């Protein structure tokens, strides 16, 4: 995802001289290195100083530029939280904060590098928009949106590198703020977003093996949440499964249950997300996720219990 972001950002930056990238000592990947080489003045490294990274983005934006802040998600959002809240959101500036390694992507690096609460934290700030693309193709679309929009700050959660393409044959186009059907089926709807969409696809394939065709939906935009789209899902399906790499107990999960209660929906809602616990496991992302019950085996055992 980060390489696709860099590639898309680079292309946009060729057209828009106001686009700048402000990083806090993060090693540039792929095309970001190219951006740094080709536009050295528009690539700014504040060093290990995330508060300045965000504060400078605010000032640059207030003075006519379109900066993106870019570093590991925990450092991008948690360390300079008040700068994000006050300088970007309170002042309502169109600055994008890109958090890479969202969720538990940095699975071997310990809990300090797990952005497991980022969606809740970012969404709780007024004016903040939150987006978590599900694969490199959605990352490209999301980045294009962030580059073009002028309505306020965005937090964009990305994974790492090498995520599979999952949305190549999506039913719907990517539209910011709208649920996106990747597959259309009946009875069951699987909802997910971010890098853990790969698990949702596994579950989808598992259903298919069993002769059932569920729908598969990307909830790439978490804020503003597409209440209308979710409402339709509640009306159209008997069973909804939400899979999220977010603690405590999932962001969309709670929102969907609230909406279901408000609308007196009879749909069965099953939610699978990171628990309200730090993860003391080192390994691959799927191994950490499994420790919190985010595996096909665990989901199937729960669903059929």
């Amino acid at each position, binding site marked *: 995802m980060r390489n696709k972001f860099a590639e898309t950002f680079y292309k946009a930056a060729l057209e828009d001289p106001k686009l*700048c990238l402000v990083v806090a000592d993060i090693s540039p990947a792929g095309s970001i290195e190219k951006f740094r080489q080709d536009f050295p*003045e*528009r690539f*700014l490294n*504040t*060093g290990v*100083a995330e*508060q*300045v990274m*965000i*504060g*400078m*983005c*605010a*000032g*640059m*934006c*207030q*003075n*006519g*530029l379109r*900066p993106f802040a870019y570093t590991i998600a925990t450092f991008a959002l948690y360390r300079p939280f*008040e*700068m994000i809240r*006050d*300088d970007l959101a*309170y*002042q309502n500036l169109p600055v994008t904060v890109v958090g890479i390694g969202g969720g538990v992507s940095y699975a071997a690096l310990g809990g300090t590098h797990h952005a497991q609460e980022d969606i809740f934290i970012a969404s709780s700030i007024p004016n903040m928009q939150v987006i978590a693309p599900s694969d490199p193709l959605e990352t490209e679309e999301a980045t294009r949106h962030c580059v073009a929009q002028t309505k306020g700050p965005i937090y964009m959660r990305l994974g790492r590198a090498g995520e599979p393409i999952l949305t190549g044959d999506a039913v719907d186009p990517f539209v910011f703020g709208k649920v996106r059907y990747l597959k259309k089926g009946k009875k069951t709807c699987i909802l997910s977003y971010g890098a853990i969409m790969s698990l949702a696809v596994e579950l989808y394939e598992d259903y298919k093996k069993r002769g059932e065709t569920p729908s598969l939906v990307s909830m790439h935009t978490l804020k503003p949440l597409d209440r209308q789209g979710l409402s339709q899902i509640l009306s159209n399906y008997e069973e909804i499964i939400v899979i999220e790499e977010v603690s405590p107990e999932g962001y969309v999960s709670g929102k969907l249950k609230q909406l279901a209660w408000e609308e007196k929906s009879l749909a069965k809602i099953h939610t699978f997300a990171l628990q309200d616990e730090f993860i003391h496991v080192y390994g691959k992302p799927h191994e950490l996720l499994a420790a919190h019950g985010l595996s096909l085996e665990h989901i199937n055992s729960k669903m059929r219990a």
Partner: protein
Amino acid sequence: MHIAPAFSCLEIVDSIYFELMDRQQDRFVLSKGHGCMSQYVILEALGVLAKEDLDRYCTPQGCLGGHPDYGTPGIEASTGSLGHGLSIAMGMAYAEKLQKKDGKIFVVLGDGEMQEGSVWEAMMMAPNLKLNNLIAFVDLNNYQGLGKTSETHPNFYPIVDKCRAFGWETEEVNGHAHQDICQAVSLRKGERPLMVVCHTIKGKGVDFMIDAPIWHYRSPNGDEYAHALANLQEVAA
């Protein structure tokens, strides 16, 4: 209300607006946002704010709160929380350079504010970027919410040395002397960002606010208000 903190930086802000700043192209960020009454009265004098705006200060009918808010006429940044303004000003200064513009960015910090770590992130960064269009002032009034800064943080002094060590051009002046403040800026070498350390008196102009930490926050009662006004008329005379 933060009355005494506004009096300590009044001449600094006044000098910036009325002498140092080209208001067509320069910008001013009051990083010690709690001193905003100093800025409000000057913006009113300049016609940016109306007298009614001052009369409606901190009321639902007005547009001015106890801290400056971006979007209010003449206010460049929301700085109610300390430690934000210098980074924002740096971003503005960098944007000026990048866009090949000549604007200068002025920023006023509080001495207590300089205990925020974010200020030192910015202090370290500004000279790296060669932001010679960034002109900062420290309102060194030696008081903060809980007492005397020189007593709670004696190793913070001398501040000017710390600023110089971080790569800034520095000057040290009487922060109530208009001429000195202006000269510090006009005579600078101008190769690096400038930090003017301004020795000031918190609550200057009102005798009972001087050397009294409670006036960092306190609002005057009727008698105190009348006394303060009489004091200020003497100073003005």
